[in-house]
């Protein structure tokens, strides 16, 4: 356990030494929040829409921050692979799970910082949480876990391609996940292929879980399903990343 904490701390420290990799990500998420809220808040007036559009769109800003935040984990692994430090860590008694998950957890922790900032800005411009502060904390938990899920995928891509540009390009796969969903309007308003895509897309259930606590209350069906999806996806992508680390280095046991 100590080694995991040591490696997470190291990843955090190194990531914070490159603020240029984090600041644009926060900026673009805040930009999304303001632009989508200003441009699309007329959705509030559509029959069948209940609640505030700000609370509806806030999870989109948060999950877009998660996309960029996850990239941090991939970039760090690529840097470690390129510098050879990854091999150095593999030669210590540290468990490989800690070595691969260290950057992922660090990326998710950094994401929490960004999410808190977005939430504070949201509160300033009039966000009201239907479940109060505990609900806001639940949003942070969702963001952390979804950040882990994305970071697992980014780490997998980094370990597979061992190349910064390719690992970065692989994270483009996040965008369909983010936008082929109930991103801008509720699921009921969607129709045709987009509705099918949204139902298949796990991101939809993360949105629904966050929106439940922000807009309606502790709807445990939505929240529980959302949590199940984020925990399941994070476990899956994290396992893929570890498997890739073992496979690509063909380590002896």
């Amino acid at each position, binding site marked *: 356990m*100590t*080694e995991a904490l*040591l490696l997470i701390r*190291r990843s955090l*420290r*190194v990531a914070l*030494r*490159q603020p240029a990799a984090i600041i644009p990500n926060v900026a673009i998420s805040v930009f999304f929040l303001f632009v989508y809220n200003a441009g699309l808040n007329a959705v509030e007036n559509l029959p069948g829409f209940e609640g505030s559009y700000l609370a509806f769109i806030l999870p989109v800003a948060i999950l877009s921050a998660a996309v960029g935040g996850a990239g941090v984990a991939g970039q760090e692994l690529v*840097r*470690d692979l390129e*510098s*050879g*430090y*990854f*091999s*150095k*860590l*593999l*030669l*210590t*008694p*540290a468990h490989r799970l800690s070595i691969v998950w260290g950057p992922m957890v660090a990326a998710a922790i950094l994401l929490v910082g960004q999410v808190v900032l977005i939430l504070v800005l949201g509160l300033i411009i009039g966000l009201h949480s239907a479940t109060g502060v505990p609900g806001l904390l639940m949003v942070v938990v969702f963001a952390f876990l979804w950040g882990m899920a994305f970071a697992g995928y980014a780490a997998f891509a980094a370990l597979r391609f061992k190349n910064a540009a390719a690992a970065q390009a692989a994270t483009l796969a996040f965008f369909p996940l983010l936008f082929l969903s109930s991103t801008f309007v509720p699921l009921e308003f969607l129709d045709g292929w987009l509705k099918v895509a949204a139902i298949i897309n796990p991101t939809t259930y993360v949105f629904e879980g966050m929106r439940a606590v922000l807009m309606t209350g502790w709807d445990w069906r939505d929240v529980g399903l959302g949590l199940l999806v984020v925990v399941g996806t994070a476990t899956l992508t994290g396992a893929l990343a570890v498997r890739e680390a073992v496979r690509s*280095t*063909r*380590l*002896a*046991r």
Partner: protein
Amino acid sequence: MSSPADRSIVVENLTRCYGDLCAVDSVDLQIDSGRIFGFLGPNGAGKSTLVKVLTTILAPTSGRALVGGHDVVSEGHQVRSLIGVALQDVGLDPLMTASELLQLQARLFGHTPEAARDRGRLLLERVGLDDVPAEKRVGAYSGGMKRRLDLALALVHDPAILFLDEPTTGLDPVSRAEIWTEVRRLNRDQGVTIFLTTQYLEEADRLADEVAIISRGHIVAQGSPEELKREVGQEVISLVFAEDEDARQAEDVLGQLDGSRQLAGRELLVYSAKAAELVPSLVRRLDAHGLVLKGLSLAQPSLDDVFLRATGERMEEGDDSHLGEKVEP
């Protein structure tokens, strides 16, 4: 830390292939505890691959290797706790400082925070980096400083067996000499078994108790540097011509003379117990056949001659003569 009695390395019929290409092919080695073993070969001969297998980074394709008595495949964890490794490409995070790297490494090997701090300070002093500003990130270090820090990292847990993969490639002569001094000290004072790969003949000659020469994945010669050189012959006459063809003709012309011969491009080497006595008759005979010499020298055999005799080729052009010229900034 503890001093395990078994510091040996045993390699049995070990092969490691990448697809169809076998970088290490049916290699056998036996290195006793407390020796400095020089593993010599040109670029791409398979040195680094063998080091990666012995240090548990790569699994072998077939065969077996024991490091400190532990199997590198089934007992990788025990092997890793015994060995220190400085790979050819130094593995340092450029965004961290030297003491951060050393302390993290020491903590991962189980030191307490206080012990890790002390260990870091001691090792920085030992590799001569204690006067570098503490906040300086490793990315700003010179090539020589990075090598020394990498060596310090390999020593964090007092390893019983140390693997150094081309520890001085690209270093200036001063840094190279410092690394050599430290390697000898570790071996003498702490009884550390040292497995050192190098493409510098001089390095193997000066440091190693025993040398193996690898070429294209195969061990082509093994023994102490003196034994190997004795096997080649007593003295070497090097005859250099303007063209490869001249050297080939000279080989025919000198056919009946005493001593054995080896052709290498436009150079012809003659090995003989009485080389000095042979020179006049040799020159006369070449002259009689109109073969013009561009250069002639007489020398004791080097490990390069051993390599040439074993493989029919010189080690990569200029590996020795370029000592100290390929200096990293």
